[in-house]
């Protein structure tokens, strides 16, 4: 049970300080989530914090490997 940051990440740093379990770390070429530490924010917040602030659609995947924020969901851009 963990979220995953993939290569669409632009390294904006928004998620990193919000993680209640310090699971997110700076890495090259992009930030990563330590799957062993990630709790999906269960018990701390109603929504996973990283996925709630990440501005990039598709950069964070849920535990099923699907985009937490699918295309169009954040920017309204559907093309």
């Amino acid at each position, binding site marked *: 049970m963990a979220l995953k940051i993939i290569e669409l990440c632009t390294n904006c740093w*928004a998620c990193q*300080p*919000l993680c209640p379990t310090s699971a997110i770390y700076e890495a090259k070429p992009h930030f990563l989530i330590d799957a062993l530490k990630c709790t999906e924010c269960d018990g701390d917040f109603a*929504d996973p914090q990283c996925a709630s*602030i990440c501005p*990039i659609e598709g950069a964070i995947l849920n535990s099923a490997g699907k985009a937490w924020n699918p295309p169009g969901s954040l920017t309204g851009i559907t093309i």
Partner: protein
Amino acid sequence: MIDLTALQPEKATGGNCAGSCGNHPHSPSAVPQHIQEKIHNHPCYSEQAHHYYARMHVAVAPACNIQCHYCNRKYDCANESRPGVVSELLKPDQAIKKVLAVGAAIPQMSVVGIAGPGDPLANPERTFATFRELTRLAPDLKLCISTNGLALPQHVDELAKHNIDHVTITINCLDPEIGAKIYPWIFWNHRRIKGVKAAEILIQQQQKGLEMLVARGILVKINSVMIPGINDEHLKEVSRVVRAKGAFLHNIMPLIAEAKHGTFFGLSGQPSPTPEELSNLQTSCESDDMRMMRHCRQCRADAVGLLGEDRGDEFSLEKIEHLEIDHAAAMQRRVAEKARIEAEIAAKHAQSAQPLDNTVQLISLDKLRTKKKTYRSVLMAVASKGQGIINLHFGHAQEFLIYEASQAGIKFIRAAKAELYCTGDETCGEAESRIERIIKSLAGCEVVLCAKIGYEPWGKLEAAGIQPNGEHAMEAIEDAVKSVYQEMSASGKLDEIPVKKQTMRA
């Protein structure tokens, strides 16, 4: 008697600057003294200072807590920068090093700002770590931030502690329905909130932050992005409200929306305002106690240098890494340079107060008297790289300063971006379209004043009805614009408007 002040704007405006530069011609006391003192050597806030003092931005704040429809989050914050720009992200210690290096190399440096690449207050640790060290090592430098306002109220006390006396808030609306068309979401209280609710919270926080800053005596400037059909009319209301709450400057910037930037507005075909639409809105928002900042250049988040120039490349991390800097000596140089600039400005005032060429003025006054005419106003474009002087080759101008000359005085209207005309051999094939673009951006201007100009652009400008003029190279901008205006009126070029008695006295 003719109203002599009509041709001597510096007298009409209380001698703030050579010409009406820093003041609205009809509002001699537009800026209260204590504010004038705070801003007068801030290049972004004072139209006078931007000719002399340099500023720099450090990009230490990558994260953002909202989304704007004119911003693509792969690039810098679009509230403060032009879209499509990526700044070199710095850690606080790197930013401090860079500021000190630039401050040692450019003694005109007076202001350090954090404006991105995200929102400074969405990155409070990084932002305040930077400011704390700078206050310690370079206490002469002014600090400022630009923010979307969402996290502002919770940080006002800390801002006040660090003695940061200039804050810019981007406020695009007061009406959440309008806001919902500009902001798709915000991150608030650990949740992503969308729609009208999101806009409502953002607007509340912005207004609260504005009020709290004003209550603590911190200067607040408001930035607004003009989005035709969405908030253009509404911005008049915004201007009234923020003025009533005590903001000292309102800066309306044009939306820049192009598909290639990948923004919602760029891709949805949302039009940007024309330079005229922008200028008209700025004029209708301008009033006696609220000045518009027409010289804003929407610099990038890591810009370095005088407004309108960017020397950021000279100070990349690699280049400054091994520099040894004597902070105390650097500060002394800056303080000395400031004194020199102040003396230069004072000397310029003294000179302008006694017109150099009395004969020219008398002749034109004579003409005014005998013909009993008023003359229409004229827009002139100026190529300058600073010091308030016409000292730039037409082909090297990255932007032109547009001045309006009228019988009421000389007034700065806006800066018009020019893509570089002269960019070297390989791109010269495109020169044709570039001059066309410059001509377009100078629409409405009848004269362009520059230090020098090539034969070819001269012809094209002339054909487009814009008279190039290189006769006033190295002269003060205001004096040159004034004398060209006088020549034009003396030669009858400005006679078109029928007699109106308003500025005449029998």
